[in-house]
């Protein structure tokens, strides 16, 4: 591999010939450059899209801080080069390198990919290829870095099982340390005097150690058997100490939020501070993947959030702060928080955003408190427009409540209201889609009453995907023809100069659906699609749908098998050996309630026994009180020598 000096010399010759060279040079405030030889373990984090999208990823910011806080480890970063830079890198023999020290990625001990969504998969292959590494896990040997991945998409790791050595399921803040410890331990045992590459370690031994860590899934130690119809018969561990079900990791108490955010020198998407005010969601919307896999709800205190915001503003000088959660209005002391943030930053030219607000007039009050001056837009997400659909998806907001909120928003001077909807919910008819158009018109009429022609409506309409680990995982999704029919209806109905309609192209939705519902056989499809030229699939204009359909054909697989087939209640899904803590039985029962039109209220009011508490009873016992929004666990702790205790002691040997 090239040395950092050689990489820098080659970069100097190409950087001025590409767009936005600032993406490729690092040097951001708060990036951490440690002495390479002073640490035992070196990790590279990769966000598999371009710099502009990757830098603001909060998960990677958290992990970057945690690893660099260790004296014995360093973390650096890499992103995918855009097409122009990729061509230059390939032509000039520049491997994918880290921004901090310009090291080739192949020089690191481990590479960690962030996979928050599925349409990044071909970019992972492209990153490995640019790094000069074999793509398939089975083809890498002791001289190669370990390749791990984490993020929401990894709750169905099977499509990427051929390429990733180990997946982290769930929250990474604790397990990242356990992984680094394991790497360090195995490395110190494996390195011999005179090793050509000092980071050489015994890969098989390391993977066996990782397979025993709670929340870590090492696919090579699991065999998948299929029925003749292509559904899964069994997923069986081939190692005695690899668990048959991998339960996600969950941090019982959120660690302090990061404050020393990377400050990019160029303009990027979401150039802002982000502080998580709460993790998890109690609403139980049945389509929502995040809402199911991030339970239980844990809330940070107002004091902690305000102190972190102040520290972050001082450390970065950034001009925007986002207070993040899946449902801001459900954060218990939301009014106190908004008041405290408003007072703290009054007159300091800080824009504060509070996404994911409930649709009611209280939200309008909250937003008003945060604004120094009225910004253009206000966003609400009804997701469905007919009463029947709202019952089915368990997001029940009466029209009158939406109209009242809209009235208030326009009356207080916001000129643009953005409404998010989803088409394709289970059992949706054209009438339900028509209801979306009707509601949009009624909302705009409220705006016109208050503001006349200045009122604008933006309707963002995405298409439902039955995501793994949700109550809708048994549902079939709409075909391309059905999606087009519904989108055409909306396009016809919402022709108005004051309405902007945006939608997701059916090809993008179908690809995301195949990748999120796929089994291990999809590895061959992803590889073939990448070889056909697929990359940057999340960029609508880069998506090469033909590369995917021909890849499926070449692999002898029918994509409709993954998406358009209703599932038997007892079907074993490719992701069933991965547990979010929420029981499959609970999800099925909720799906049946959905079909019966039964809604379930917020589970803060009434626990429906989704399975989180039994899965994390010890954590709840250790963290009593209101910090978690689940009920307390009263039952006594199981006697000593439980499975995990045995696992711990054998682990230490």
């Amino acid at each position, binding site marked *: 591999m090239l040395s950092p000096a050689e990489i820098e010399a080659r970069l*100097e*010759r190409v*950087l*001025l*010939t590409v767009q936005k*060279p*600032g993406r*490729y*040079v*690092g*040097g*951001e*405030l708060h990036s951490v450059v440690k002495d390479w030889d002073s640490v035992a373990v070196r990790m590279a984090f990769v966000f598999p899209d371009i710099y502009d999208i990757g830098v603001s990823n909060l998960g990677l910011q958290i992990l970057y801080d945690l690893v660099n806080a260790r004296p014995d480890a360093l973390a650096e970063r890499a992103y995918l080069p855009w097409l122009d830079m990729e061509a230059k890198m390939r032509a000039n023999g520049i491997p994918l390198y880290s921004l901090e020290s310009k090291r080739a990625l192949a020089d690191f001990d481990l590479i960690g990919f962030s996979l928050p969504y599925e349409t990044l998969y071909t970019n992972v292959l492209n990153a490995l290829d640019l790094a000069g590494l074999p793509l398939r896990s089975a083809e890498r040997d002791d001289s190669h870095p370990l390749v791990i991945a984490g993020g929401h998409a990894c709750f169905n790791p099977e499509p990427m099982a051929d390429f990733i050595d180990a997946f982290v399921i769930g929250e990474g803040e604790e397990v990242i340390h356990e992984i680094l410890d394991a790497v360090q331990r195995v490395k110190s045992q494996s390195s011999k005097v005179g090793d050509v590459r000092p980071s050489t370690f015994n890969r098989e031994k390391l993977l066996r150690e990782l397979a025993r860590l709670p929340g870590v899934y090492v696919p090579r130690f699991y065999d998948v058997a299929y029925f003749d119809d292509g559904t899964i018969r069994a997923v069986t561990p081939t190692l005695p100490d690899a668990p048959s079900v991998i339960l996600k990791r969950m941090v019982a108490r959120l660690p302090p939020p990061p404050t020393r955010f990377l*400050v990019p*020198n*160029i*303009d990027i998407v979401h150039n802002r501070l982000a502080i998580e005010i709460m993790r998890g969601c109690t609403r139980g919307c049945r389509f929502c993947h995040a809402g199911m896999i991030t339970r239980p709800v844990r809330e940070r205190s107002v004091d902690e959030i305000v102190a972190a915001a102040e520290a972050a503003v*001082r*450390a*970065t*000088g*950034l*001009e925007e702060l986002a207070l993040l959660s899946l449902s801001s209005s459900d954060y218990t002391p939301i009014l106190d928080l908004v008041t405290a943030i408003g007072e703290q930053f009054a007159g300091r*030219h800080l824009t504060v955003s509070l996404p994911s607000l409930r649709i009611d007039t209280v939200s309008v009050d909250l937003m008003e408190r945060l604004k120094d*001056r009225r910004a253009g837009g206000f966003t609400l997400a009804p997701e469905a427009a007919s009463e029947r659909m709202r019952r089915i998806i368990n997001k029940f907001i009466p029209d009158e409540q939406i109209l009242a909120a809209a009235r208030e928003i326009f009356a207080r001077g916001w000129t643009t209201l953005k409404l998010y909807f989803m088409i394709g919910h289970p059992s949706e008819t054209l009438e339900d889609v028509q209801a979306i158009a009707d509601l949009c018109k009624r909302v705009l009429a409220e705006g016109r009453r208050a503001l006349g022609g200045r009122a604008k409506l933006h309707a963002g309409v995405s298409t439902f995907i039955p995501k793994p680990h949700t109550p809708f995982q048994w549902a079939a999704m709409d075909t391309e023809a059905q999606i087009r029919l519904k989108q055409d209806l909306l396009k016809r109905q919402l022709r108005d100069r004051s309405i902007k309609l945006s939608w997701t192209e059916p090809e993008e939705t179908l690809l995301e659906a195949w990748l999120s519902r796929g089994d291990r056989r999809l590895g061959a499809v992803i590889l073939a699609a990448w070889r056909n030229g697929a990359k940057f699939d999340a960029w609508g204009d880069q998506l090469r749908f033909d590369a995917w359909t021909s890849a499926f054909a070449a692999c002898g697989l029918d994509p409709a098998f993954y998406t358009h087939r209703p599932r038997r209640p007892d079907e074993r899904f490719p992701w069933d050996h991965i547990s979010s803590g929420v029981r499959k039985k609970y999800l099925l029962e909720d799906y049946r309630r959905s079909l019966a039109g039964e809604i379930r209220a917020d589970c803060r009011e009434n626990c429906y026994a989704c399975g989180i508490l039994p899965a994390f009873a010890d954590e709840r016992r250790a963290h009593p009180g209101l910090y978690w929004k689940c009920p307390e666990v009263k039952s006594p702790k199981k006697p000593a020598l439980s499975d995990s205790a045995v696992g711990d002691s054998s682990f230490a040997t």
Partner: protein
Amino acid sequence: MRLRITFAKTGPLRYIGHLDLHKIWERTLRRAGLPLAYSQGFHPQPKIQIAAALPLGFVGREEIVDVWLETDDSPPPALDSIQAAAPPGLTLLSVTPVAERAPALQTQVVAAEYRVVLLEAGAGSGLERKAADLLAKESLPRQRRGKSYDLRPLIQALEWQGDSLRMILSAAEGATGRPEEVLDELGIPVENTRIERVRLILKPAIE
């Protein structure tokens, strides 16, 4: 209070453009705890004026920026406190208060001095002659974005210094010479060079 800051822009910041540099100054001053003055109007912006845009890839050895603060009579902030808040590649050289009503900085720049390092070994041979020949010409007619102009009067100085090429080019409104154009006249491909703007030359201050 209006402050004039001179600074070097090097390292990773070579690849950062003019608008982004504006933002970098804004954030640096905010991190330093200085009360930036904002423009009036619907979209208040911090009042920051950079003397002259530095082309992407150029090192700036002595660039100039004016910034306005909301304070008036207090002593000017210490250079060190701003430096501590600056990102890698931004090095402060001086911080001095200037008259609030002094003319806009951009209008005061008349010329810029450049130093061009050649990356290819031996590329400097014969350059002394070539530079002299160029200066001996009456005019150097060229085209820039479809418009014809004469480069020769924009070259105020040009000499080979043994390890690099030094040039002073006019940098006034409507009469700006670019080092790449001079390199082109000398037959040197720009990708084989590293260009530094050594300093900006301002109109003499009228007291």
